[in-house]
């Protein structure tokens, strides 16, 4: 029961759990927004530093597997949360509500996400999923005087709870059939042939539906725009990036342990991917609300990610990881800019939602406008940005696995997507009839620095993707070895 060698490998989780309790005590001792903020940043750095120590360790326990994939995504998640924490400070700076607990919940949600990516067992997966979701309900409804946020929180609560129930029912049915809850044991059974039967089919179907809800793939995507639009912008960034990325890693682990995908399962994912790409891009065309536009864009992007998932194998994993990193950078930057440009209002932070309120941003704040334009181009997949390379690898993995239908739909839907991304860019650079005033945000230095880093990463991974790709392929080899 007691694996001493696993303890150092779980240091990031231990640090995050301890940090959230200490953060709570810090709040009890003295309420200070700046101190709690710095404490959160410090504990994230500490967790990231402890990750470096376990980078070349492959340890497997009943509940967790610590391999290259897990450690890589853990690192990406911790860095992303670091950015979100930086964006949260100016966002909540002028808010009248008690804002310190936000960081406790942020740390807890991160704990859930980082332990999900190393889960190797239904129990550890479900536990970390619930830690993540329960923190997210509160994070979404955090500005409790904003009715939009509370509405988004309740919507997310109901839908996430229902999808969790569906998911756990599916996991239960798989357990009924196989008598196993560990992915490693399931993998062993699968090579001997599980014997497809009705329980297994229904179970896998329910699991796909549950995970589809969490990933906002198309038949299960309806909650996404409302939740993104209502949640405070830093939380939207969290939902868009971290909760999606960590669930995707578990999806990958589940289906790669069950073995080569059977035709039926593959067909389901092909249909889901096509629907997500087409409907996501299609619905984004008419959006006048930037956050809703990003929500539909994220649905489409998850569709692209599923293309790499269907391709599976080493190329698929390479492509998925690169695409995920590029997508993380874009979403963090976009929601960071939205939260940075928000203004304090009576009930909470008033965000600029409509596209028209960004008209002529370039003539007022050229740096932000250029970054937002670059993010849009990256999401559209224009060369010299990380998004292009990510989409290129996804396309390549589709070609390698001869999924021609998926490849064609990917290209077509990217063309549709180009239209609405460019519409945002045009808004940013056109001269407004009446100049829109943008307020000076407090504590712009750290946020500005974060934007600069995102800008550099976006260009760097777009021009010289070799560094990131080397890192990813190193990690894939560790999985095999």
């Amino acid at each position, binding site marked *: 029961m*007691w694996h001493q060698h696993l303890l150092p490998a779980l240091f990031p989780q231990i640090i995050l759990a301890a940090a959230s309790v200490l953060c709570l*005590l810090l*709040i009890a*001792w003295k309420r200070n927004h700046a101190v709690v903020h710095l404490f959160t940043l410090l504990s994230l750095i500490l967790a990231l530093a402890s990750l470096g120590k376990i980078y070349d360790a492959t340890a497997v326990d009943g509940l967790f597997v610590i391999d290259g994939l897990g450690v890589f995504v853990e690192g990406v998640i911790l860095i992303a949360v670091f950015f979100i924490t930086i964006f949260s400070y100016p966002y909540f700076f002028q808010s009248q509500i008690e804002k310190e607990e936000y960081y406790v919940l942020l740390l807890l949600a991160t704990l859930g996400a980082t332990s999900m990516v190393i889960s190797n067992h239904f129990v550890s997966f479900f536990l970390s999923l619930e830690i993540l979701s329960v923190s997210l309900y509160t994070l979404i409804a955090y500005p409790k005087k904003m009715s939009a946020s509370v509405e988004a929180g309740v919507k997310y609560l109901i839908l996430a709870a229902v999808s969790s129930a569906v998911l756990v029912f599916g996991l239960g049915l798989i357990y009924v059939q196989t008598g196993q809850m560990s992915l490693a044991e399931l993998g062993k059974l699968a090579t001997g042939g599980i014997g497809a039967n*009705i329980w297994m089919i229904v179970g896998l179907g329910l699991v796909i539906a549950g995970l589809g809800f969490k990933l906002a793939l198309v038949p299960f995507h309806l909650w996404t725009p409302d939740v993104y639009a209502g949640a405070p912008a830093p939380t939207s960034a969290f939902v868009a990036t971290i909760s999606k990325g960590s669930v995707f890693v578990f999806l990958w682990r589940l289906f790669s342990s069950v073995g080569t995908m*059977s*035709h039926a*399962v593959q067909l389901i994912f092909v249909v889901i991917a096509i629907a997500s790409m087409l409907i996501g891009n299609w619905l984004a065309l008419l959006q006048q609300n930037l956050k809703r536009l990003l929500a539909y864009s994220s649905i489409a992007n998850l569709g692209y990610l599923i293309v790499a998932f269907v391709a599976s194998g080493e190329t698929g994993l390479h492509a998925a990881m690169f695409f995920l990193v590029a997508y993380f950078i874009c979403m963090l930057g976009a929601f960071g800019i939205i939260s940075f440009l928000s203004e304090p209002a009576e009930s909470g932070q008033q965000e600029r939602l409509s596209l028209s309120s960004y008209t002529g941003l370039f003539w007022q704040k050229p740096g932000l406008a250029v970054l937002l334009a670059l993010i849009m181009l990256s999401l559209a997949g224009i060369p010299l940005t990380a998004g292009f390379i990510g989409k290129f690898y996804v396309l390549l993995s589709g070609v390698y696995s001869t999924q021609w239908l998926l490849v064609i739909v990917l290209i077509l839907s990217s063309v549709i997507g180009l239209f609405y991304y460019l519409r945002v860019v045009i808004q940013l650079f056109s001269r407004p009839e009446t100049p829109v005033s943008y307020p000076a945000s407090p504590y712009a230095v750290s946020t500005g620095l974060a934007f600069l880093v995102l800008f550099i990463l976006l260009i760097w991974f777009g021009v010289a993707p070799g560094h990131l790709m080397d890192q990813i392929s190193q990690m894939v080899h560790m999985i095999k070895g």
Partner: protein
Amino acid sequence: MSDSFVHDIHLWPLLLYSALVLLTAVGMLLLSHFLGQRHEEPATDETYESGIPVTGSARLLFPIHFYIVAMFFVVFDLEAVFIVAWAISLRQVGWAGYAGVLIFIFILVAVLIYEWRQGALDFGPNSKKILKAYYRRIQQKRKSS
């Protein structure tokens, strides 16, 4: 999983079962719709209070402390259950389990400290606060007069 995933199994029991579930639910709703009685008397839509005429709305104002007490009870009671679960398997889980339950209790204490500092444990009217507000008011009156 074999490739002949869908072929060698019978799906019809599932379909039949789903159809039966649907049929039962729809049948119950339809039957009660057509066969059930309908009343249109003056008191039909009134709240049923054991035959006594309604005395007022059910939307009363009462102190939120009741909710907090109930919530604390549920939270801490549930956590006691976990400690009992540990106590049952004391010998099997050994010192690692002991360390685990210590951490668990420490987290409980931390939460209790947090709640205490938040003022969540102050039930009922706070006499100090009331007195303070009272004196402030008296002083304001003196200043104005």
